[in-house]
């Protein structure tokens, strides 16, 4: 087809709304966030600043709240990504080996995906919370096994981190189970039949056939899992409330938003610097992941 001037114009007209929205709310902010991050002493009221440099980055990197958020986020990532991927793999293997009730289980397992993180987080909070009039459901269970009650919401650091990890895993599981179940179902059954004829053991079949066949999907889940966990925020708010710094449970994303708005807000420059540090971390981890996955392919 020949490209005529009129056609050209019409095509741009179709694209115009998308270009407009993306330009104003994605491209411009992307450039702007870097500019903000180097503007020192930016004042959002007068919209002025008195210098440029890397002070914002150095401020953020020395801020104890940021370091706490960094630590929390890393612990959350290191615990939840392997655990959730592993459990999801076990569940998917189980799902794939049954016929009866499979659809029912799949439907149930997917439910957390369609729930409001903030709303259902409150249910986890009351299940784990210890108050004056009740120790909460989880503590009743712990007591039944002879343990001591723990205040998981306002108590020691490890207890709070544990609840956050449990809730995060509960939330991310549906996506992983869904992806892995369909990956497992797409492995050609001929391989399994051949292995069975050869009398290969079940573990060997899994290790030698299933795992290599679905490894691209596992890597995909690990990468998206890392990215998602590094951006954790609303799960923490759901459990511990909006004042995450006081609860010692802030995440990097939470730190960005606190710098921007709220009681400690009004510092878009610090927020920008923190957001760019987060982006750099996520990018590095993703690149490492891709390199590892490429190497295992060879």
């Amino acid at each position, binding site marked *: 087809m020949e490209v005529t001037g009129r056609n050209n114009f019409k095509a741009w007209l179709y*694209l115009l*709304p998308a270009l407009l929205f993306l330009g104003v709310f994605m491209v411009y902010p992307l450039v702007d966030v870097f500019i903000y991050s180097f503007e020192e002493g930016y004042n959002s009221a007068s919209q002025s600043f008195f210098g440029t440099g890397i002070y914002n980055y150095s401020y953020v990197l020395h801020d104890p709240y940021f370091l706490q958020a960094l630590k929390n986020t890393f612990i959350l990532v290191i615990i939840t990504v392997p655990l959730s991927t592993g459990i999801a793999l076990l569940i998917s293997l189980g799902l794939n080996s049954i016929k009866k009730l499979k659809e029912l289980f799949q439907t149930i397992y997917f439910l957390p995906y369609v729930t409001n993180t903030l709303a259902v987080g409150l249910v986890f909070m009351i299940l784990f919370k210890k108050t004056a009039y009740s120790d909460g459901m989880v503590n009743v269970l712990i007591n039944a096994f002879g343990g001591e009650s723990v205040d998981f919401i306002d108590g020691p650091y490890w207890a709070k981190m544990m609840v956050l990890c449990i809730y995060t895993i509960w939330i991310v599981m549906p996506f992983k189970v869904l992806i892995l179940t369909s990956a497992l179902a797409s492995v050609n059954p001929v391989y399994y039949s051949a292995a069975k004829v050869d009398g290969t053991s079940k573990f060997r079949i899994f290790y030698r056939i299933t795992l290599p066949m679905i490894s691209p999907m596992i890597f995909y889940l690990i990468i*998206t899992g890392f990215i998602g966990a590094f951006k954790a925020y609303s799960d923490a708010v759901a459990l511990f409330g909006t004042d995450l710094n006081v609860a010692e449970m802030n995440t990097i994303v939470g730190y960005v938003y606190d710098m921007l708005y709220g009681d400690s807000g009004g510092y878009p420059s610090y927020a920008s610097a923190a957001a760019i540090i987060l982006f750099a971390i996520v990018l590095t981890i993703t690149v490492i992941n891709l390199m590892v996955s490429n190497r295992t392919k060879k």
Partner: protein
Amino acid sequence: MENKTDLEQIEKSSRVKDIAGKTVTYILLAIWAIIVLFPFYWMILTSIKSYSSYNNEYIPKFYASNPTMQNYIDAFKTVSLGKYLVNTAVFTVATTAIMLVVTVLAAYAFARLQFKGKNIVFVCFLALMMIPNELVIITNFVTITNLDLRNSFPGLILPSIASVFYIYLLKENFEAIPDTLYYAAKVDGTSDFKYLIKVMIPIARPTIVTIVILKVIECWNSYVWPRLITDDSNYFLVSNGIQEIRENGFGRENIPAMMAAVVVISLPLIILFLVFRRTVMSGVSRGGTKG
């Protein structure tokens, strides 16, 4: 003869093993199902316990001895749950509708129309997919504040519209529609726009439904942007609403009423999911990102 008995024995023992394996599998799957369902059970159970009976149970009971609907009435009367729901519905419908128009037009331009610089623009679009929301939200916050659009629906909706990924998804789908249809329509004198409406959209309907459902889920659960841009509770969406209810809702810590609100907020999406189960699950496996 002996050989045969051996074989029978092997078959029998492997059948026993199989049954044992199946049983263990079912038990483990059931345990995970209970872990998933328990919070839902607990929120419904708590929401029908009365305030006094809930607070009198030092060891929480697994059933409600005197179920009551009072908490649901409280959730709508004492706090503005109704308003939060209406706000969220307006936000969801408006955002999804505008997003759909923008997405369909852009996908059509990329899939069907010829223009100079198409490839460059498309590569730029793909590059934008990698940009995390956290990076652009700071400037958007400043932009919307400067435009004086805080605490307004345009302020909530406008930055939530653009979704590069959906344009990409729909473009792929549009491209799968054979060219011959397009040329036939051109010969008949059908305009591009009419062709898009009458032919392309109906054929791509499954993908469009997927996009709509994914966007609705995203809108209904969105928390970060609404929290930044609204501090007037008249414009709160459900996520912020429930946070508000938690922090200074009923004047006292009324957990049963809070759980009633949680049930009301969770219900619309769960119903949507149960009705469109297959579409939602296949849509998420194609384009979901939460997790």
